[in-house]
């Protein structure tokens, strides 16, 4: 093998290696261009209010449902049973809200001594009941509006 031929093969090898890298990067770029396609469409879709199949059994706690009155999920009804409800952008939250002003784990609503209590989970923009920003777990009375980011939920009987 002549020196020249070896040099050419050497460069060809590096060239092919980089060609491979460039093709992968092209594919990556195509994926970035169409983020909606690679991402499941489900999460971004505003969900129509599912009719609660069963109305929560008469529980001791006062409110029985949270109704979304403002924001992308408007109309959604979240029946309150006995378990806590978490609100945030994280996909495993009970109420998943797509909102840049909400934190991943924004707030939770849980039953305590016959009432529903809201607790802010260290969110960036705060959790508001009517016009007050809450700092400690606060009781959410019937009729009160709970605001998380651009979403407002109302406690109903």
């Amino acid at each position, binding site marked *: 093998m002549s020196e020249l*031929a070896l040099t050419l093969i050497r460069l060809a*090898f590096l060239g092919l290696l980089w060609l491979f890298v460039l*093709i992968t990067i092209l594919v990556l770029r195509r994926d970035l261009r169409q983020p909606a396609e690679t*991402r499941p469409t489900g999460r971004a879709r505003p969900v129509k209010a599912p009719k609660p199949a069963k109305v929560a059994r008469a529980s001791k706690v006062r409110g029985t449902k949270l109704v979304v009155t403002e924001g992308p999920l408007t109309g959604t009804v*979240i029946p309150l049973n006995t378990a806590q409800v978490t609100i945030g952008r994280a996909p495993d939250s009970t109420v998943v809200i*797509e909102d840049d002003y909400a934190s991943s784990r924004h707030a939770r609503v849980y039953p305590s001594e016959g009432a529903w209590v809201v607790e802010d*989970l260290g969110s960036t923009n705060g959790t508001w009941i009517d016009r007050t920003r809450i700092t400690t777990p606060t009781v959410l009375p019937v009729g009160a509006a709970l605001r998380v980011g651009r979403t407002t939920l109302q406690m109903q009987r």
Partner: protein
Amino acid sequence: MSESEPQSIRRQPSRRGTELLLLICAWALGVLGTLQIGWSTGEGTPSRLWVTVGVVGVLALVMHLVVRWKAKYADPILLPVATLLTILGLLMIYRIDVAAAQRAERNSAPQPTPDVYAQLTWFAIAVVLFVAVLILVKDHRRLQRYTYSFGLLGLILLILPLAPIIGTTVNGATLWVRVGGLSFQPAEAAKILLTLFFAGYLVVKRDSLALVRTKFLGLGFPQLRDLGPLVIAWVVSLGVLVFERDLGTSLLFFGLFITMLYIATQRRSWLIIGSLFFAVGAYLAYQLFEHVRNRVTVWLDPWAYADTTGYQIVQSLYGFANGGIMGAGLGQGFPTFVPFANTDFIVAAIGEELGLTGMFALLLLYAVLIERGLRTAVSVRDSFGQLLAAGLAITLALQVFVIIGGVTRLIPLTGLTTPFLSYGGSSLVANWVIIALLIRISDRARRPEVQQFDADDALTQVVRRV
């Protein structure tokens, strides 16, 4: 994230064609590289060229077809990149075999057995496992059921090398298990099992871990009770370090757990606590263990120990220097100057023969692989899948960082295998299983949603069933 996308569900291209093209490209690189090594070392066209090249081609094709069959919408990048890395590893191992054989001939010593065929066999076993994972694990969410079994099994595997009779010590580190004529590193399997365990555990516990109770210095710190798992991870990884003298593995496990905690809870305080634990652990290890101290002193000034403990790293750096920008060319460097050139220091051999250009391509390949893993984590819907994909990607990332950082003297050298490249069966097989799992998850993430999903998901999305 996108604000109220149009509702239409568009066809997600499966991109299997791209995958095949890239695989052919990777295979062609293998052929070209083998020929180049044969010609430039004066061996001529390798005698068994078409057998080895054919085997690699068939293995790649089998994987491609299985992905087509079982995970149609999987990420098209993962498989070809991992294949190319394996092929580069096989090339370098073959190259080092040739060099070792020639040296033995010069010194009229007995011919060493070539490693490349063993590695090829391991690649075949890895492909079998890859196929098995894709066929057996139809849905990654099923794996969540066995969270604690995986955790227990992982821990057992981790301490297995300490067991009498079967545990073996090689070069001062006790991380081998020898049964019959076969030996393997259980830590490699344990890393996958523990990632599965961490993911399953954190999905369940992350609520309590994320609920911050005490604010301190402007950062929320978790409760003492929640620190439990962290302490356990810390103790286990230190235990591995103490009893098996395996610096790399303990670093890997600790880093893996911290990053997974951070991803699961999204609390920066975990990173700070983790760093504190790391600092304490590192300081203790430095004070207590001779070998840790050695590594650090050599790292600070390898040239002072160029003939003794620093020999490896100095030779490795000379190799990189000799490679320069374009590399010496495959078959034209002196990779055998570095001890363990085909395991820990395979990157040094690549750096010498492919140069900076090749190193950058290599690092980009790793970056792309890890990026695809993390992207899978971002796009899959279920939390377990997210954590698992992220954890697996992080495992690869940490390994690459620890070993390439060590070889290039960015950080003190710790023994870990270079994923897909290093000679060694357990590592190759384990990393291919990681790729299989990532492909399985990415198939789920990229699959266009069909009718059967909608009804169910719309409900669980808003109201979790209690």
